[in-house]
């Protein structure tokens, strides 16, 4: 069971880390100082969640039998193997390759304009909010504890991003147009929330994870409620893009990782 739990925990960590990295690109570039700080706070919250998951994943791995460790070979950071020490959170964040990341495609898309950023955050927070309510019941006490700590943060992210979706959607002609464009670009990436990868199905069956398919209806309801106020309409198109959960990414992730991982790649194990 711990093998699947390790992969599942990495998936949750990657979602949080990659969106944190994307949002942090606004730091120093926000539309106004107050929103610059708001989006940076959200990025930091997500980074904190990612750390909790990576620490948990590293501890899980270190406690596995040699046989199980060998079977996870393909998910481990290659440079770490030459360090000859136990696995640590930073190894997982900074030394894995693109195809080893299991984050949703939605999280890795470039930050776009403010409309794109807040709409993506809204979709993600609405999902995370429902997800954490379920993860509270996880049979893994550590995951349940992370869910409890994070759900308060996410409640605020959802409130904040919902309000921005309404402000821009029901705002000026330009802000409405930009929200429409963001919606057209983002919608096809929202289906991946509810398309369970193999390790997610295992997680739901074993009881340490969440059956994401069951969250779809509540998520749509939340989206429609906010959209109604924002004078936006969810697109009818049902086709959706996926692949991120199994390591097939858009071309954007490589650039993101190149920037984020540069220091640890060039100066392995360096510290502040």
């Amino acid at each position, binding site marked *: 069971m711990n093998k699947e739990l390790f992969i599942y925990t990495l998936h949750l960590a990657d979602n949080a880390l990659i969106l944190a990295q994307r949002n942090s690109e606004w730091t*120093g570039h926000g539309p*106004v*100082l*107050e*929103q610059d*700080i*708001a989006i940076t*706070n959200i990025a930091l919250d997500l980074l904190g969640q990612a750390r909790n998951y990576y620490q948990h994943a590293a501890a899980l791995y270190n406690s596995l039998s040699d046989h199980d460790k060998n079977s996870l070979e393909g998910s481990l950071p290659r440079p770490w193997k030459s360090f000859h020490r136990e696995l640590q959170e930073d190894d997982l964040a900074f030394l894995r390759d693109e195809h080893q990341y299991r984050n949703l495609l939605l999280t890795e898309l470039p930050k776009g304009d403010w409309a794109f950023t807040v709409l993506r955050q809204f979709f993600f927070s609405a999902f995370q909010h429902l997800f954490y309510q379920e993860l509270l019941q996880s049979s893994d006490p550590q995951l349940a504890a992370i869910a409890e700590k994070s759900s308060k943060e996410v409640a605020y992210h959802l*409130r*904040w991003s919902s*309000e921005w979706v309404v*402000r821009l959607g029901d705002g000026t002609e330009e802000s409405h147009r930009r929200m429409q464009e963001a919606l057209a670009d983002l919608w096809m990436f929202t289906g991946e929330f509810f398309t369970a990868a193999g390790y997610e199905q295992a997680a739901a069956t074993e009881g340490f994870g969440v059956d994401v398919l069951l969250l779809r209806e509540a998520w749509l309801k939340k989206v429609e409620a906010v959209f109604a106020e924002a004078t936006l309409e969810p697109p009818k198109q049902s086709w959706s893009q996926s692949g991120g959960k199994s390591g097939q990414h858009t071309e954007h992730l490589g650039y993101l990782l190149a920037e984020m991982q540069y220091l640890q790649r060039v100066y392995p194990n360096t510290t502040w």
Partner: protein
Amino acid sequence: MNYFRKYYYGDYGDKEAPTGGDTGKAAANEWPLWEVFIRSKQGLDHKHVGSLHAADAQMAVENARDVYTRRMEGVSIWVVESKYIHASNPDEAESFYEPAEDKVYRHPTFYDLPDEVNHM
């Protein structure tokens, strides 16, 4: 004619333009200024902590949460639009405050307190 206006980070338009001319159009589109008051966990009163820009009261409270309570400074937030604050005029400081200077008898220090009275 100056066709270009240089914008700096944190330049909201209602502040003095750094260089070049300001048409005044930018200022009309800017969000109003709000004063922020925070009550800390131990504190009994809300204290002024600073100001920020926001489109309306709800946004002002959320911005205040993000800008001024990141390090657990507070458990309660008040915001009030700056234009509703009326201040005393510094030019009148003499007539306002100086007359109190030589009236020490206004301090309650001219009588003895019984020992049983605490917290005075």
